[in-house]
């Protein structure tokens, strides 16, 4: 596929990650749009539920994660659209960059974006849904991080394959959301136990499930991505 000395995998992944961050920073307008999209989703959920504070507080974890899911579709879709516009992915592969490094870099780039977004959403969720963040802040951060990685790992593979399909905007959520069902269950429940009472100490199990989900999809994506990128 390529000639010349290869950059070590992790270093190449780091370079891809840096490149993506740089692009995000240079197109701040898109980033802002993404943030406001997620914020307005949160706001819409609270409008749809009406002013029932109790119900809002109870369902806050679900709303938070759904807002992240919807935002992730936008960010994942963008992350390969910018590559496919000028055959940039081909350029990356022809450069001595392993496809697996692209996968890792993209996954962690997207995960960091989503994680940052979720950090921005938290104070808004406090304002809208009246939740307590101070109960288990460390675990909450861990859940958000694991959840962001879990969305990105299968999401990047699906984004790479749907970037060139017709109706790609519909294709990505259609392919991605069913696969993310266990992640949604695990992260919403873990967030719920981070925010509220956890009588039976169920949080560690959900965290384990989240970790397992991340590891499985990171490994499967790592194995599959070269086959996917070959065809790009």
């Amino acid at each position, binding site marked *: 596929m390529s000639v010349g000395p290869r950059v070590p995998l992790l270093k190449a992944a780091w370079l891809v990650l840096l490149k993506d961050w740089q692009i995000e920073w240079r197109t701040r307008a898109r980033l802002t749009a993404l943030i406001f999209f997620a914020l307005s989703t949160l706001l819409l959920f609270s409008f749809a539920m009406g002013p029932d504070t109790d119900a809002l507080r109870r369902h806050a974890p679900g709303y938070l994660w759904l807002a992240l899911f919807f935002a992730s579709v936008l960010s994942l879709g963008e992350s390969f659209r910018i590559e496919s516009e000028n055959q940039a992915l081909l350029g990356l592969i022809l450069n001595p960059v392993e496809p697996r490094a692209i996968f890792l870099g993209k996954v962690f780039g997207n995960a960091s974006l989503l994680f940052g977004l979720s950090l921005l959403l938290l104070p808004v969720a406090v304002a809208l849904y009246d939740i307590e963040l101070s109960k288990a802040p460390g675990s909450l951060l861990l859940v958000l991080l694991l959840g962001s990685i879990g969305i990105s790992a299968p999401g990047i593979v699906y984004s790479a394959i749907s970037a060139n399909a017709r109706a790609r905007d519909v294709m990505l959520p259609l392919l991605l959301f069913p696969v993310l069902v266990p992640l949604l269950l695990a992260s919403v429940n873990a967030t719920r136990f981070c925010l509220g009472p956890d009588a039976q100490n169920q949080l560690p*199990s959900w965290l*384990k*499930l989240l*970790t*397992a989900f991340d*590891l*499985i999809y*990171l*490994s499967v994506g790592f194995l599959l991505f070269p086959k996917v990128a070959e065809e790009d």
Partner: protein
Amino acid sequence: MKWFALLATLSFASFALADIAVPKPEPFVAPVVAAPEVPAVTPTPSPAPLHPQGIEKAMPSMGVIDGGWAYVYACYFLAIGGTFFYGLSLFLRRPTGPLPGAQS
């Protein structure tokens, strides 16, 4: 080496999954089920006399659902009809002309 690390990751992940045991379900107690609302179209009387042995087996437990034949018929129609119509759709879409590989 890389592949080995991957295998280790995968197996660790599956161990992590296996470690979370499903909580033991409560000991199963026969629930007392109210008779379901059966639509008015329920055909045929209950063919109870056909199964003296079976009914006897079913009797000792509580909460036996009575009737509901309409649902059963609906499912069997669905099974046969679905199979038939999917087969029909395959027939209608059948390729005309020589099959690929027929010449090789």
